[in-house]
């Protein structure tokens, strides 16, 4: 179980500005908890706060992984404990190939000294296979991470990394925005498959489109840094019809 208890998060600029207030939510193995909310409501900040982005300071509350307080662990340690974050707008890392990153991340998890060691030809084969499964041409493995990738390619790369590293919990930040319907289905199928294998997913999404293909067990709505509503899949359907009006938010497309 991944639990967020009374979590308040501030963003560090020249001072610290509180952006999330007393967030409570949880996701268990094999569950999907959708986090919905209008733009700027704090959905991404929540994922950053959980993962430990250096600019996002936990002011209060806890993040518990299977009962253990991991709030203060570094992002590196959280990753190794089984958390994975996929970014809405992932940065480019010039000089590091996607395959190199994955080999290094895998070796780190295996306790291998040499991060670049390719101990087995299957490693590359598995990677190519996974890339194809999420609709990313295997050639992308040889390109620098996200460098010159289109929006859609970035989404696929993020998901592919999530699947490859086999985390316990995935924090997915809008994994479908900018994709066409067929691509959304592919992304959703892969997420659902991971969920069936026991992965817990915190799925951040503005629109409920992806939730037609990935069934959420729980839905929480965040507005202005606070959880304002919690429910089951029906809450996502409601937002799909009515938007966020009920919470005092009128969005103009």
């Amino acid at each position, binding site marked *: 179980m991944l639990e967020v208890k009374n979590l308040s998060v501030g963003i560090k600029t020249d001072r610290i500005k509180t952006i999330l207030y007393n967030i409570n939510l949880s996701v268990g193995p094999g569950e999907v908890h959708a986090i919905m909310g209008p733009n700027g409501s704090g959905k991404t900040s929540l994922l950053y706060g959980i*993962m430990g*982005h*250096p*600019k996002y300071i936990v002011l209060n509350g806890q993040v518990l992984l299977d009962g253990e307080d991991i709030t203060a662990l*570094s*992002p*590196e340690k*959280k*990753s*190794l404990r089984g958390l*994975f*974050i996929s*970014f809405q707008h*992932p*940065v480019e*890392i*010039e*000089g*590091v*190939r996607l395959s*190199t*990153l994955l080999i*290094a*991340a895998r070796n*780190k*998890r295996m306790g291998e*000294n*040499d*991060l*670049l*060691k390719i101990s087995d030809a299957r490693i590359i084969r598995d990677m190519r296979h996974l890339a194809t499964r999420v609709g990313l041409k295997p050639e992308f493995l040889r390109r*620098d*991470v996200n460098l010159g990738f289109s929006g859609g390619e970035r989404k696929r790369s993020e998901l592919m*990394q999530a699947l490859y*590293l086999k985390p316990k919990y995935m924090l997915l930040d809008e994994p479908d925005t900018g994709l066409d319907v067929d691509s959304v289905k592919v992304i959703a199928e892969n997420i659902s498959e991971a969920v069936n294998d026991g992965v817990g997913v915190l799925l951040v999404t503005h629109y409920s489109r992806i939730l037609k293909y990935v069934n959420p067990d729980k839905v929480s709505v965040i507005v202005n840094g606070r959880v304002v509503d919690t429910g089951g899949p029906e809450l996502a359907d409601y937002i799909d019809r009515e938007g966020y009006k009920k919470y005092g938010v009128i969005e103009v497309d």
Partner: protein
Amino acid sequence: MTEAVKATNIEEILRYTSIDELYGWEWEYSKEIEIRGKITRDVIEEISRVKKEPEWMLRLRLKALDLFYKLPMPRWLTGIEEIDLEELASYVKPKVERTQEWTDLPDEIRKAYEKLGIPEIEARFLSGLTAVYGSETVYSKMKEKLEGLGVIIMPMEDAVKKYPDLLKRYFARIFPPSDHKFSALHVALWSGGAFVYVPKGVKIEQPIEAFFFIGGSLEGQFEHTLVVADEGSYVHFIEGCSAPLLKRYSFHDGMVELYAARNAHIKFTTLQNWSRDIINFNNKRGIAKEGAIIEWTEGSIGSKITYTYPSTILAGEGAKTSNIVIGLSNGPYLKDTGSKAIHAAPNTASRIVSKSISNNGGINIYRGLVRINKGAYNSIANVECDSLILDDSSMAYTYPHNQIEEPTATVSHEAKTGRLSEDQLFYLASRGLSEGEAKSLIVIGMLKEILSDLPLEFVSILNRVIQLEFSEVGGVG
């Protein structure tokens, strides 16, 4: 072979968990001759006598010594004042006979090479190997199949005696002692190194390597490499260097001269991994004749201070050069690197690529010169400087300089400075990598360009060295 220094294979090297495991602290080795103190005419004569040199070489040394005392200290050098030449040994001959069999070497000497897997790499990938310890070549071997082709790979001392005509034509002619104080010092004191001659039309597939090891504190190493590639030939020469941790500093002042005759192609790769106690000065220059190609690639990783500017004179029509220097300054160290491309003939092309990585207080300096002489019609020169600064305490400077006398020339310069952002580090951390690991991946990525032509085993070892360089445990002090 004793248990203590049984051959280290590459697999074992890749398992090292700290850079200290490579060599650790300096160890004792037996010396037959050691000359210290003020560098006088007597010292030069003594070195020449020990080497049983012909008269012409002694005269060249003495002329260079004269220049050394006359020439001023180069104004552009920073940090060189740390060297007290009178404190250094100007010549150190280990007590060992030069051999073609690793097993002939005493353990204390052999382990300098085995710790980096050199004998294994030699057996599998190299056409020939010259191993220098202190001031002397202790091992030199060429694979048999090259002998029938007329290829020469031999210790420089032997070449001086055996091929005086060739040597008089090129030795200290491509890079004359009169250039500056340290080229003069080098020519006066040179010892050890390799001479390579590749006959017309011969293309040597597997690379040749020279590996230089400094075994102790307060030693000077002045090895000399000369590669002459005759018309239409090809050779890839790799030089590597390393040293253990030293109690005091040591000084390296080597020279490399390349001569590529018409349509010849020389690739010269340097993997510099001196320990943090070496002040490393290099004198590297090549001449490319008509249609010839000279490619320098240098990965400058170790040392306290490094000065290296591999340069090419494009002396024949259509000659080309590519000079890639990658400097890593991780810690309070300085890499003063760069390149010169002198276009002295029409339709010549040069590409200078400088990549630097500064971290943890490190400083990188690029100095470059592109000169296009009048009459070098339609020549093309391209300079790229790419500086990556990994934290706020580190710095990079670039001083490009162009002298263009030919209006038909095309010269371009691109410079960019990158920093590793918090978001990039967070991204890599979120994949489970520490800051040091993230940085090592980025540095290895920057080295790609020099690694592409090397045997995979070299690449693996170099990758491992970079990872250890950035690891939080151990690391060089």
